[in-house]
């Protein structure tokens, strides 16, 4: 079976994002990584293969040429091949899901496994939109995935607000991953060098048909107002007094 794992290049989630004086994201000292949720999706694909499933894993990224760095990392993590859809234009989840649907129609994967959200724009839309465009079932926020031995369906445990829900989806389907599905492996340098021989195919977004324009337009970005400085209390008694008499929340 073929698993397609879309990946996005995002700023390191443990770094701090700053704005330039012009109100744009300051990219001068950003460390770029694979979106952590997509990394979890790729790790899961690799583990499904390691558990004995006969799986071909292809990763796909839609973005400028610099994104090749993250595709190379994905090959080092265990993807068999990578597809780079070169695209420089402005995007939103509507644009990306449209392009991913076109990729799926060419690649015919049995499963699209991807992060539930990107940690930069925090949209949490692309997987669900892709499933709708393809008319496939979806299972979002997966914390456990089991493939049927014959590859016809997947049983997915989902993290939902009330607890854990289990669904069974017929394949092909889109599954989006949550944090606790797995802990991605560390990729050592030799693996990245070795992965240089793995196939990486490039194509222009225009080869996938007409490209829609984004309809979500960011007008400006600002840092939220900081909280006013608090103070230290020296004891539990002092804390209780402050909460009762100053904050009046008890």
């Amino acid at each position: 079976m073929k698993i397609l794992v879309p990946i996005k290049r995002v700023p390191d989630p443990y770094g701090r994002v700053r704005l330039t004086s012009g109100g744009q994201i300051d990219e001068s000292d950003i460390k770029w990584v694979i979106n952590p949720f997509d990394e979890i999706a790729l790790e899961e694909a690799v583990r499904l293969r390691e558990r004995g499933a006969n799986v071909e894993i292809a990763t796909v990224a839609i973005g400028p040429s610099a994104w090749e760095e993250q595709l190379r990392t994905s090959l080092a993590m265990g993807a068999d091949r990578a597809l780079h859809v070169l695209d420089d234009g402005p995007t939103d989840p509507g644009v990306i899901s449209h392009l991913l649907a076109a990729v799926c129609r060419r690649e015919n994967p049995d499963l699209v496994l991807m992060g539930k959200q990107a940690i930069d724009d925090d949209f949490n839309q692309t997987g669900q939109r892709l499933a709708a465009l393809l008319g496939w079932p979806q299972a979002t926020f997966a914390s456990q995935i089991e493939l049927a031995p014959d590859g016809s369906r997947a049983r997915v445990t989902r993290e939902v607000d009330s607890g854990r829900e289990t669904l069974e989806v017929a394949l092909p389907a889109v599954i989006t991953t949550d944090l606790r599905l797995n802990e991605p492996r560390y990729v050592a340098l030799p693996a990245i060098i070795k992965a240089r021989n793995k196939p990486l195919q490039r194509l222009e977004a225009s080869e996938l048909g007409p490209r829609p324009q984004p309809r979500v337009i960011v007008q400006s970005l600002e840092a939220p107002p900081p909280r006013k400085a608090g103070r230290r209390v020296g004891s539990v008694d002092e804390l209780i007094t402050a909460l009762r008499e100053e904050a009046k929340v008890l």
Partner: protein
Amino acid sequence: MTKLLVLAETDGASVLPDTLPTLAFAQSWAAATGGSYDLLLTGGPEIAQAATDWQSYGAGHVLVAASPDLTHPVADRLAAVVNAALQQTGATSLAAPSSTFGRDVLPRIAALRDLPMLSDVLSVTNSGNGLTFRRPMYAGNLIATVTLVGNEGVFSVRGTAFGKPEPSATASPIEAFTGEMTPTQGTTWIGLDAPERKRPDLTAARVVVSGGRPLRDAETFERLLGGLADKLGGAVGATRAAVDSGIAPNELQVGQTGKVVAPELYIAAGISGSIQHLAGMKDSKVIVAINTDPDAPIFQVADYGLVADLHQAVPELTRKL
């Protein structure tokens, strides 16, 4: 006149309280557009009885889609029903709570309707030449001001940013959903493992007591934090690290990818204050931090910081309250 459909969050049998701030968003949206809104309830046959409780929030109609097929709605079937309800009501925009319920189904409907979608909407205003929205990005470290091409859209609403909806003088008439219940496109609902809730809902609680990995094990977590939460009539929350290490169940996670809370009082015990955790609680009215590390980032957002070992301080606090 433009119309918005509000999809109520239900558990199949009753309407969940985070539908209220979504109705408050609908009222802001109606004020900004001069439009109106309808409310859609979906669920099993029991959901029909819930409709009478939702007639006083200014909706043009309360539309009820009740069917055994919707008792455990899966995204593809629910999306088809909401799509048909948009046709029935003539609504061209859609809103629902930004919970796992809304986040799961809304983008699917947005794609079916070929509409843009905004996640976690914090506000909507009319800027004079169209609607302007605000929403968080980068784990809440940035707030984006955004517009939509065409103004119509799908919105997941961050509950903590909107209060209660204004009550209306006249009752919204109840109407039945007349669309077809299409079969699912290959999803089977297997089960829900939902621990019984003995405390207020995390996102609606007046007080939230949260803990991190220093709580060490599930028993200590429940005894110390649960004890304090019960004394205050509050809910219990947890960091991602606490959930990852099995100390707390996943539905308690507060943060960028968990729940977003803004209670009157948030007590953070043994929480260092990662960017991802702060994203879920920094709009709380009063924040108390208890941590042994005086340099923990949580103290930068805390109104009251106590440098102490939570294993002593939390039981002492519970005892003295």
